[in-house]
């Protein structure tokens, strides 16, 4: 646990403005030169409930949530007041304070809105006694009162930020600048007055006995604060994707919304449609006609996309889908992250799957791998799916602005122009040979396509097995040729990924170590921090974050697993799906693999992985304190 970092948690009810307040405060910290990582926890409801956003800020790179946190701004749930006759809100009002105490570190700071939270309710929490035990510094402040003095009650967030800044000994400059950018007129004036009053009041009224302060840092260049969903949308835009179709579902809605806000301004098209079957079918239709298109959903909606996904595989229509996982089965826990849709995404839809699946491990990878997904989909005429989760979707991190300074790539891949079509193979009848099956003509499995409206390119695309011209066929020899050709594309894609691009797997830790930790997707940053801490503590550990789910990076994982005696596989599900994939693809190494699984709705903290490693591979015999489960190695 390091305290050269600030982990600030702002807690309230949904609708209390927690998101926007935290977003601006995070930007202010970033502008002051700090690295930022945010974590969002919220319930599946519109108003009220206990929600928080955590901002981790440090003078060094941060790529995970921390262990616990050290500064709480508890606003209280304003929507729990004035309950209507039939509604029972119970103790919800005080939850933003009471629910967060267990994770507050020793020496931590608590600011709560005494204008909203009743003294009697607070007394029941034994706050004084617990503060004494944990060396917490508690500041009950009437934030609501301060807000009402200059403006409206909802501006109490601003008062809370003012107090926070004072207690952390931060300047107000960046915060004021950001407010000025976001607001205007009376609202801005009121907020600025509240901010300054709160800041000055806290400076004047309190003795600063706490140790928590804003860390200091410096950036070499301009930073931008982006979420995983931003990164996916921006990757798509830079690949020339100008068509998206979708249906709202948490957490996928974030990508859908960002695309919808941007596409029309770029002359693109966004379609909100009747269901996810239609959404995926629209993406297929648009792509078939020659536009770079995408769709996506979360688990339940993705289930509906199975058939259009299979249609895209069989008709070799380029398609990019995103699947933003949340805790299942069924409706599960809509706003909580989980990595339990891996098998669903790899294998759904009838017949042999012929798709590409990438699981980005952080925000930069989300951008890069979205671009790679489009490149592969359009070059190889195959569906490519990005699988990520509520954690990566909603977390924000600072990234160098120059990271996004890239060339766009709007190419349609293996699509012919009319001039090229004149030279291409046609049947005697005049039909274009869209699905050539001769292995000599289609070494990498790809047979270039034409687009409707082009002269000399007409053909039939069919979900039935078909002849090279597209006509339906059940001839055994043709079937085997076509099936082999489509399957060959996956080998070619693996070859291209291995030989022409940097690996999409991320390696970290001590290269010469005999013990390893393997993870996939959004847990990568957390595992990376855990591995660093283990090595700092004298262990020798190496780690890998895997992104290529299909086609699987056999060579890289074989090399990694041959180099270690044992490995801990860390994933957020109950059935060890990635370990299963690893064993299926490699066919060995079972005895080396132990799983560490978490599926309580919260992502791992680095400390939990450190502890898990020490218990399973490091020789400790203690029981884990975290809510995790171990799945022993085969034969154990």
């Amino acid at each position: 646990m390091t305290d050269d970092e600030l982990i600030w948690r702002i807690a309230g009810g949904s609708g209390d403005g927690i998101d926007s307040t935290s977003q601006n405060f995070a930007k202010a910290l970033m502008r002051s030169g700090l690295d930022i990582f945010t974590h969002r926890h919220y319930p599946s409801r519109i108003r009220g409930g206990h929600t928080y956003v955590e901002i981790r800020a440090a003078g060094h790179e941060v790529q995970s949530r921390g262990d616990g946190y050290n500064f709480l701004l508890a606003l209280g749930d304003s929507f729990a007041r004035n309950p209507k006759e039939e509604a029972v809100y119970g103790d919800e009002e005080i939850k933003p304070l009471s629910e967060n105490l267990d994770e507050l570190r020793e020496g931590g700071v608590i600011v709560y809105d005494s204008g909203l939270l009743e003294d009697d309710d607070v007394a029941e929490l034994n706050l004084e006694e617990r503060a004494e035990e944990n060396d917490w510094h508690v500041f009950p402040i009437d934030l609501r009162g301060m807000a009402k003095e200059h403006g409206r009650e909802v501006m109490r967030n601003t008062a809370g930020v003012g107090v926070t800044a004072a207690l952390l000994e931060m300047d107000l400059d960046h915060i004021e600048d950001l407010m000025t950018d976001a607001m205007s007129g009376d609202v801005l004036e009121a907020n600025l007055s509240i901010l300054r009053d709160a800041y000055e009041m806290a400076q004047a009224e309190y003795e600063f006995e706490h140790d928590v302060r804003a860390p200091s840092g410096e950036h070499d260049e301009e930073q931008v604060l982006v979420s995983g969903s931003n990164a996916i949308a921006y990757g798509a835009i830079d690949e020339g994707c100008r068509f998206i179709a979708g249906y709202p579902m948490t957490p996928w809605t974030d990508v859908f919304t960002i695309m919808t806000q941007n596409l029309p301004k770029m002359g693109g098209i966004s379609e909100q449609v009747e269901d996810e079957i239609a959404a995926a079918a629209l993406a297929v239709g648009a792509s078939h006609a020659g536009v770079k298109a995408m769709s996506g959903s979360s688990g339940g909606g993705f289930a509906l996309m199975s058939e259009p996904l299979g249609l895209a595989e069989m008709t070799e229509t380029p398609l990019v889908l995103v699947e933003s996982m949340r805790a299942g089965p069924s409706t599960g826990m809509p706003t909580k992250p989980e990595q339990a849709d891996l098998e669903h995404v790899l294998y759904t839809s009838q017949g042999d799957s012929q798709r590409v699946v990438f699981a980005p491990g952080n925000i930069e990878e989300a951008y890069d791998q979205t671009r790679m997904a489009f490149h592969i989909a359009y070059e190889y005429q195959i569906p490519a799916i990005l699988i990520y989760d509520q954690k990566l979707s909603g977390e924000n991190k600072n990234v160098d602005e120059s990271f996004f300074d890239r060339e766009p790539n709007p190419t349609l891949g293996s699509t012919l122009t009319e001039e090229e079509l004149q030279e291409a193979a046609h049947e005697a009848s005049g039909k274009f040979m869209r699905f050539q099956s001769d292995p000599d003509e289609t070494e990498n499995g790809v047979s270039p396509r034409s687009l409707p409206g082009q002269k000399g390119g007409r053909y039939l695309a069919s979900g039935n097995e078909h002849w090279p011209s597209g006509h339906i066929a059940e001839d055994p020899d043709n079937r085997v040729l076509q099936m082999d050709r489509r399957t060959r594309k996956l080998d070619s894609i693996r070859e291209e990924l291995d030989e022409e691009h940097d690996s999409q797997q991320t390696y970290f830790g001590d290269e010469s170590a005999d013990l390893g930790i393997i993870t996939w997707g959004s847990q990568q940053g957390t595992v990376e921090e855990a591995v660093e801490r283990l090595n700092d503590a004298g262990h020798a550990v190496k780690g890998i974050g895997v992104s290529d789910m299909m086609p699987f990076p056999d060579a890289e994982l074989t090399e990694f697993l041959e180099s270690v005696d044992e490995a801990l596989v860390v994933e957020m599900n109950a059935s060890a799906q990635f370990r299963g994939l690893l064993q299926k693809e490699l066919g060995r190494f079972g005895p080396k693999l132990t799983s560490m699984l978490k599926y309580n709705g919260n992502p791992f903290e680095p400390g939990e992985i450190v502890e898990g490693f020490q218990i399973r591979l490091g020789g400790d015999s203690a029981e884990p304190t975290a809510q995790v489960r171990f799945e022993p190695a085969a034969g154990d």
Partner: protein
Amino acid sequence: MSAFNAIGEEREIDRDEFTPGNEPQPTWCPGCGDFGVLKALKQALPEVGRNPEEVLTVTGIGCSGKLNSYLDSYGFHTIHGRSLPVARAAKLANPELEVVAAGGDGDGYGIGGNHFIHTARENHDMTYIVFNNEVFGLTKGQTSPTSPKGHKSKTQPSGSAKTPIRPLSQSLNAGAGYIARTAAVNPNQAKEIIKEAIEYDGFAHIDFLTQCPTWNKDAKQYVPYVDIQDSDDYDHDIHDRTEASQMMFETENKLYEGEVLTGRYYVDDESPSYQQEKQAIGEMPDEPLVERYFDDDYEWERSYDLLDRHK
């Protein structure tokens, strides 16, 4: 310059162009009404000046889904019930294509019913032909959404307890702009209706009665038929929603009493198509989106220019 030069090509078009040079053997039974749709469509397309490579026919699954196997054009034979979402996206991507979607009554009114309602509501500029034979043919005669109440089949051995779908009324309620019913046994009317549907700027729905000689042996030949526009007994105003609604209701009832009424039921000459609506609110480009991918001079927007809000 367009990258799609089949579109709008000025030349005489022979109806034979729509017959595949290497014609696959039809899987349709002798006497099947589906031949009537194919024939009417092959006649209609050249008469409205469309050539095979500017037409995209998008079909569902079933006997009807084979339409584009026997019609030479760009074709997309999709999945059961999903022809409409594929078709409408292709039209949004390239509005200059002539998009014709087709499927059976199970495909369009059953499994794809949700898409039918929403595509009609949005009034996409395309033609939708539903081969209505009141039965599931290709899977061997099961009861379909348009089968009459009491229809017996292996999956409804005691006779269907369900009232059939009212395809015309449903289409009107959903928001389709052009609604007609024709029959395979009336090829001239069918051709004329298809031509009108293609020329119509909006969602044109044709409920096409296609007799199934194998599974609906009992006189379901849709003869004699009445063309309501030619009959002295009927005189409803096709631009009047209320009159259209009454005429549809009567037509749907009479079909199950053995009287086959056909013709135009509703034509909305005022509502804009979905493409027009979307362009009006700035959510669809004026030039076909696909053309941009072939325009070497186009300056593609970059995410780098969106970053101010993230600082």
